């Protein structure tokens, strides 16, 4: 009993594991190892709707498939954007693609940042490191597009060097100019091109000393998240005021294939967004 090829029979129910064809419309070199890809359907337009923080499976046939966060805000209804750092086989392949090339995309997957309920009316503090800005960018732009719904917005973003700051132009041209929004940038090491703050994100966080009436949202390398959490706690933030994302290996994206299972949660389905006190409930295996 084999499942024959369908070409002759269009009457099938399409499985959620079967992707759609996407076309890369624009590629931007963000940093030496990060590129952003604007993707639409072949006819133009977005492949599917999503919420801020949700992810999609991007597939290059014959190479592999992996989960990436959707960098563009849901308010951008014409396309999806993915900011992808080159670090493995699939991402290297994607970096080799050109505008007009096709990829396969399925999604959206996972939960999202609670922008429609919890965050409404609150002051928000975004803390990002390196490529960790990718998932936060969708939330930030969503909040800025609905500016009246949210309180004061602080964005603390750091990277290894000036060249490694993703979306710097947008930060300067849009975020810094947005009403009631403050951006704090830092880089790890001194740079003659850089006249801003120098130092690691966690220590800059303590230096600035944000007030604890905010909701914090962190994304970045695990070590940065760890120290930012410590420092936030020292500032008086409680764990249920802080949101972050987890990243584990995923294959299906729908909580079935089993590899992102941790405790009773599936990161692909129940995550990637978790409140830190929820993470504390999970076995220490992430």
């Amino acid at each position, binding site marked *: *009993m084999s*499942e*024959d*090829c*369908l*070409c002759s*029979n269009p009457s*099938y*129910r*399409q*499985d*959620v*594991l*079967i*992707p759609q*064809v996407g*076309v890369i419309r624009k590629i931007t070199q963000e940093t030496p190892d990060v590129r952003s890809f604007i993707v639409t359907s*072949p006819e133009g337009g977005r492949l599917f709707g999503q919420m801020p923080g949700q992810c999609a499976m991007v*597939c290059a*046939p*014959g*190479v*592999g*498939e992996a989960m990436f966060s959707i960098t563009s805000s849901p308010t951008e209804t014409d396309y999806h954007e993915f900011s992808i750092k080159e*670090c*493995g*086989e*699939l*991402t290297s392949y994607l970096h080799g693609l050109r505008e007009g090339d*096709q990829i*396969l995309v399925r999604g959206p997957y996972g939960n999202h940042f609670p922008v429609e309920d919890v965050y409404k009316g609150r002051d928000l503090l975004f803390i990002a490191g390196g490529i960790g800005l990718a998932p936060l960018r969708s939330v930030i732009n969503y909040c800025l597009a609905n500016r009246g719904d949210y309180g004061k917005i602080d964005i603390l973003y750091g990277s290894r060097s000036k060249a490694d700051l993703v979306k710097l132009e947008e930060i300067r041209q849009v975020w810094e100019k947005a009403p009631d929004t403050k951006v704090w940038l830092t880089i790890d090491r001194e740079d003659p091109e850089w006249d801003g703050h120098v130092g690691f994100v966690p220590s800059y966080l303590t230096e600035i000393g944000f007030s604890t009436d905010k909701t914090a949202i962190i994304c970045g390398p*695990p070590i940065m998240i760890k120290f930012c959490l410590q420092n936030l706690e020292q500032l008086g933030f409680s764990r249920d005021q802080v949101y972050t994302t987890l*990243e*584990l*290996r995923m*294959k*299906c994206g*729908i*909580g*079935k*294939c*089993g*590899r992102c*299972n*941790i*405790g*009773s949660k599936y990161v692909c389905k129940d995550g990637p967004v978790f409140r830190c006190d929820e993470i504390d*409930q999970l*076995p220490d*295996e*992430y």
Partner: protein
Amino acid sequence: MKKIAQSLIPQFLSCVGGAMDLFVPVRMSGAANWGIWDKNRTVDLDTLKTVKSPKDVFFPQCQTMYTVHHADAGYTIDPMKLTSQPFCVFGIRPCDVRALTVMDQVFLAEPEDTFYRARRENAILLSLACHRPAQTCFCSVFSIDAAQSDGADVMMWMIGQDLWLEGQTDKGNGFLEQFSELLEDADDGACVEEEKESIRAITRKLPYSGLSLEGWGEGRTDEKFDDPNWEQLSDACLACGTCTFVCPTCQCYDIKDYDTGHGIQRYRCWDSCMYSDFTLMAAANNRTTQMQRFRQRFMHKLVYFPTNNDGMFMCVGCGRCVDRCPQSLNIVKVIKTMEKGREEEQA
């Protein structure tokens, strides 16, 4: 109730196999495994446990989902057609029927897996009661009745020289109707009742029947995860996938590409949490020791899964892992060792 002489079973199977796809335990090169019926194959209804469970029939070890063709105009995706014809699974044991209910929790949860759903819907399950359960069986611990499977369409008992059949669902009754020619009506089912009682009496006496799952299940994550016994329990683990692959409820899978030279087949295949690359990412791996992987398998079956599924354990007590682990590690040893630890702690 229907009846057929054992000697007529090959003829019966031939009728069924001629009308629809028919899956049966097949003996080949000294091992019994599920396979599609063919007149040249040896049907084995005597072996209690096939090496691999019939999980394969519903969730094949390797299954192409779609093929991607690449032309100048771009990619085209040809999804595989779903199973659309009824087929028969003949001789599935009650524990393996329950295992399907366990897998349903995963594959039929939203968004449902259409490949699995199609096979599940089209299957006619003819379950065979376990005349002689084995020492390694512990289905009763999960309230499974080896004498009568409630999830089967037709229940069967092999008693002496006769096979007794009883329809349990409309689908099952329809099947018995369709192939009634070789079946005789049998009104007196007293011997079937006797057989059921005998099976139940045996299962009560099996060495693992008293296995206690006290301390496992919903919400036991913290307590069990940090148990010091995991280290010694997993010491001898070879990191092979035998337990996972013979297990009727393990459902983790991998998704891979196979370049046929004329299109790339995207297929999924069984995977094992015991393998070192199961959680490996380009940048990191969140389980680096075999102890962690070993613990994951049993925590998933005995704590995480029940937490998400109203207390249902992800084990049906078929005992295949007990039988097949190369180094004799298994879920029963895990349960017993930790139980002992609890007792000692409480004392």
